[in-house]
């Protein structure tokens, strides 16, 4: 028989959990359930919804454009991920160093792009990298160089998106790394100094290992965000040239919202969700969840 204390304890538990459970259900569990249901239909987003079994999944696994866009997404993620983690780490190290001046201003300036919406970032980057009237090409031409075809070369177009993504997120990850750096006990650095450790040795042998949990967090968040890159691509290249920057989320969006194939788009979303979850799981396992 439950005591009164246990009952109150259980009630308190549910009261604390309820707000989160409500939000989680409304914005994740219910849409996920609907998405699973839609993936077995030919739902057009409004009036047509017939059960078609596994037809969407069969079509998906035979769709070469699905594999191509997924491949592009992985390439883009692998290309951008090191910069997403290393640049904020280096900046965080600089702005926490005792030898650097105007640290407050540097932190603020680095963080400001994180406050901008992806659309504003896209417009700004367009202004800089536009092949026709862009600032970067103007500078290159002013210096006597040949303007670069940002919008025609798939590698340059991917670079521009990656640059924009890094620029917009460096401040956010810098703040995470600053938190991690401040949590490293000063005594360890003092001991290393007494033992004659150089700055480089201290950074590589003490700072980097001690930051492992923070680095894991930054890597995981960056990976997921890069895999889901959407707004920046729309704002900068719209998936071009050709389909060379059409990543998996653009592909899903196009099927669902432009071609009104909600059922098919739901099937892709579910398969992609499983793939992304598997990637996150591998990262967890590989880094032991960031444990030192």
């Amino acid at each position, binding site marked *: 028989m439950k005591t009164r204390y246990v009952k109150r304890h259980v009630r308190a538990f549910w009261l604390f959990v309820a707000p989160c459970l409500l939000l989680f259900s409304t914005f994740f569990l219910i849409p996920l359930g609907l998405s699973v249901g839609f993936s077995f239909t030919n739902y057009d987003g409004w009036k047509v919804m017939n059960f078609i079994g596994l037809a969407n999944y069969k079509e998906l696994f035979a769709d070469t454009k699905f594999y191509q866009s997924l491949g592009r997404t992985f390439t883009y993620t692998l290309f951008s991920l090191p910069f997403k983690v290393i640049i904020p780490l280096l900046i965080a190290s600089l702005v926490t160093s005792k030898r650097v001046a105007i640290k407050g201003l540097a932190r603020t300036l680095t963080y400001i792009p994180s406050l901008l919406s992806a659309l504003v970032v896209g417009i700004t980057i367009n202004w800089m990298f*536009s092949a*026709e009237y862009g600032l970067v090409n103007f500078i290159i031409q002013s210096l006597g160089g040949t303007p670069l075809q940002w919008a025609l070369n798939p590698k340059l177009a991917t670079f521009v998106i990656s640059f924009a993504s890094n620029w917009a997120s460096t401040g956010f990850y810098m703040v995470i790394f600053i938190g991690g750096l401040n949590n490293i006990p000063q005594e360890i650095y003092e001991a290393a100094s007494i033992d004659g450790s150089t700055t480089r040795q201290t950074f590589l042998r003490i700072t980097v290992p001690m930051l492992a949990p923070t680095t894991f967090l930054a890597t995981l968040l960056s990976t997921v965000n890069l895999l889901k890159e959407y707004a920046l691509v729309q704002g900068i290249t719209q998936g071009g040239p050709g389909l060379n920057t059409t990543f998996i989320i653009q592909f899903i969006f196009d099927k669902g919202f432009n071609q009104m194939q909600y059922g098919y788009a739901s099937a892709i979303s579910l398969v992609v969700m499983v793939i992304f979850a598997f990637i996150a799981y591998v990262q967890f396992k590989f880094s032991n969840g960031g444990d030192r």
Partner: protein
Amino acid sequence: MKKVSTILLMALLLSSMVFAAGTKEAASTGPQVLKVMLSEEPSSEDALLNTMKQWAAETGNTLDVMVIPYEDQLTKFPLMARNNDLPDLLTTTRLSRLYPDEFLDMAEYFDMSIFEPMAVEIIVQDYKSSKKSILPQQFTITNVYYNKDAFARAGITAPTIEKPWTLDELEKNAILLKEKGGVKYGMAMDASRARYDNLMYANGGSMVEKDGAGFDVAINSPQNIATLQKFIDWNNKFMPKAIWAGGTTDNPADYFKNGDVGIYFSGSWNYNSFYNQIKNFKWGVMPSPVGKSASAILGGSGLGVPAKAKNKDLAISFLKWFYTKENFQQYLNRDKGLSSLVGVTYSPSDAQVAEDYKVLQSEVGKVTYAFSVDESSMWRNFYDNEYRDALKQAVNGDLTAAKALNDFAALLSKKSGWDLKY
């Protein structure tokens, strides 16, 4: 106590009747708000919005304008309909064909014979029923603009209505413009399927061909593959390739306005903004080039009233006002476009505008039978973006012209159930 309750109840009933009557009165005769959905951000010279403002000022009503671009309308409109949050009046090109049940039948409110038959056929026609879900508002046609100063520098004489250029002459002069005309690009074209399709029709091609009561897919015909190959070559030689390769969000109209383009394939809807904005060089309208035949594509947008709109009576009263000859004439003078109302024409006082307008009018006669057949098939309801993606990939060099069109033809055939002709 019982007496007091009865008196209170009577007072409550009376007051509710008074307030109810008052509300009804206000709703029928007082100033009201017309919720309008436009498809693009209106400029200060926007003809429709300025005409609506004139109506609002005359009637004491107010406007609540929201802007949802054409491509977003397709996704937003169903959501608005489901949430009963529809505008009272909207401008559209495709919504009425995709969702005809959601619109009032305008034939019940208007005598359709007041409109130009061609405008009704192109803009209003449903092809599946006789219902008139929208009324023609902006009647547009594809056309070609040119930079007169660049032509003069390159020593090129513009073609005339009587003697239009062939596609070979167009190519030769576009190259000449790039070399001697002082422009960066000899030619540019809107990144729009319809603009490219003019080349296809001019070369004797089409998207589909009639097969009894149905259709066959013909987009991968030899002449269409040849047209796309020519277009790819043009992009590599004298066009801003990034526009059609799809790697930029730039609008080629801006290139033309900046004087960087010699010949620009667009449409009559740009005329008014060019007239107001281009001040640093001379420009004009030239007849479109001719291949096996001439080709122009008529189009435009219509005004529709959703059947579940809250203020649909107000929307109808605006439309009744708008389509009087006097008010529509004022709209047309602001728009400087083609008229969709019988007996109302635009008579420019500016000699240059009058000359351009004559060229625009001459383009109307170039609409091909193949275009009408393609429109009647409503193939775009199956795939639209996929076609543009195929063209983009071909221009960018990712696919050959034949592969791009063969793959798309197979897709369209599978989705539509129509046979492949080639």
